């Protein structure tokens, strides 16, 4: 029990911080530009594929640095030459545009690398158990993921709160027009934010792919969860995205590792149903089975009782 708790907590932390790397960019882009970027997770996938391709030629470590930069440039280019032109047609057009881009990226990835999972693995340097607790190994690579995520989080925090660029970004979140009238080049800030946001998604892809897999469905698999995170935490709130990422990361990991189910619950209440009961499927359901549903359940409850999300200041 203790080992499951400790390992679930660690894994939840790794997964949660990974979600934050994705959701932070998404929420920054949304709050500043009003664009809910449906293609955000596609940049996460691009990060993974770029890193895989680069790692073949130049090795894991240079790819770790270069792939997110390449993704960031792709994101900035998408803003500059795509979204900026679509902007004048309103938010619906932008939404549909990013939706289309998500499909396009998925098709391009399949066209180049095929539908199969790619053999992109953790580097040999990190391919060993960092420690063993109760006969269970904790891989060094996961500790590395944790380390990178925390470093990115701290860097983001410092840039946003301590630098002038960060202040401009914070100001542009609430009053982009005013920031422009004070002499700051808002379109440039938008493009840079989009680039950095997508680069963060790229980093997430690069470091997560050796664990979660590099396959064309990876964007779709994570895409819906990061929207849950952003809405749950409050659209436009970085603090909200952070708390929601950790909550959902940990809750989801716990749900799949604790094999408790309705029979245990019913036994506690002193109830028992026969195997021929017509609701037998419901009475035998277990936590790991409904684990993937829990974030969505949390989202629905949040939307009913607090549509602003945890720390949000505007309605969804």
């Amino acid at each position, binding site marked *: 029990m203790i080992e499951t708790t400790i390992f679930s907590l660690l894994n939840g932390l790794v997964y949660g911080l990974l979600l934050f790397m994705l959701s932070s960019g998404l929420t920054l882009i949304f709050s500043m530009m009003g664009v809910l970027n449906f293609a955000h997770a596609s940049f996460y996938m691009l990060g993974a594929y770029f890193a895989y391709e680069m790692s073949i030629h130049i090795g894991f470590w240079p790819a770790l640095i270069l792939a997110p930069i390449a993704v960031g440039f792709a994101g900035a280019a998408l803003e500059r030459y795509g979204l900026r032109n679509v902007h004048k047609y309103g938010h619906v057009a932008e939404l549909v545009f990013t939706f289309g881009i998500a499909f396009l990226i998925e098709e391009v990835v399949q066209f180049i690398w095929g539908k199969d999972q790619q053999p992109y693995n953790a580097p040999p340097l990190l391919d060993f158990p960092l420690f063993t607790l109760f006969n269970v190994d904790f891989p060094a690579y996961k500790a590395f993921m944790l380390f990178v995520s925390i470093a990115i989080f701290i860097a983001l925090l410092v840039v946003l709160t301590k630098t*002038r660029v960060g*202040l*401009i970004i*914070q*100001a542009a*979140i*609430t*009053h982009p*027009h*005013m*920031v*422009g*009238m*004070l*002499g*700051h*080049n*808002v*379109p440039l800030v938008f493009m840079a934010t989009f680039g950095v946001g997508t680069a963060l998604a790229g980093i997430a892809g690069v470091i997560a792919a050796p664990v979660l897999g590099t396959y064309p469905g990876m964007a779709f698999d994570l895409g819906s969860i990061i929207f849950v995170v952003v809405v749950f935490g409050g659209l436009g709130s970085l603090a909200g995205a952070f708390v929601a990422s950790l909550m959902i990361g940990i809750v989801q990991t716990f749900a799949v590792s604790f094999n408790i189910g309705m029979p245990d619950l019913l036994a506690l209440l002193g109830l028992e149903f026969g195997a021929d009961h017509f609701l037998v499927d419901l009475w035998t359901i277990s936590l790991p089975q409904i684990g993937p549903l829990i974030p969505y359940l949390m989202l629905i409850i949040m939307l009913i009782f607090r549509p602003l999300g945890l720390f949000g200041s505007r309605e969804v």
Partner: protein
Amino acid sequence: MLKVTDLHAYYGKSHILQGVNLHVKEGEIVSLLGRNGVGRSTTVNALLGNVECHGSALYKDQEIIGLKPHQISHLGLGIVVENRAIFPTLTVRQNLALGMKKANKFGRWSYDDMFDMFSNLRERADVPAGVLSGGEQQMLTMCRTLMGDPDLIMIDEPTEGLAPKIVTQVGKLLEEIANRGVSILLVEQKLTIALKISSRVYVMGHGQIVYEGTPDELRENEQIRKEWLEV
């Protein structure tokens, strides 16, 4: 310094500005007066490129219609908007810092100038601007724009909704701005401050300039005041 010629602006199909002509000379305080809805704020917004418009606006002999807001700002044209638009999550000092176009690039104004004029801002320098009172926010908005060292500043309804004591303070600041050689285009509905400090006034009606003169001439012209200004 600023010369607006035949400015037309549209909101969708409505033709709001129907050929506005006005000019502001160097060191001048000029007021643009008129009732609500006559196009005063639209004139400012058109000059800043926030509204679809055509016509000409020369600032320091350069056409600004069609430029982006940050480009206009870099030419030395400052704006204080009507809805204040302070950055609520940033502190007072950070708000002022963002008024500067580059970090620590001071012009005619320093932090201390602002804090000397409005001691409230000094006391609350490290407080998030969102918790300031309406009057303090108005001060902050004006000071923030001044930190960018504009040569002409357009101020939209600076006294709206403010207590009389603060209105007096705003009036003093406007005079101080003029003393430092900054021209002002004051957009106002009320005449109190405008007539006291302006060297010339324009009156707007139905999207056009319907009167131009000195404050004294306007005081004496009862017909214009009755037709276009008084409620």
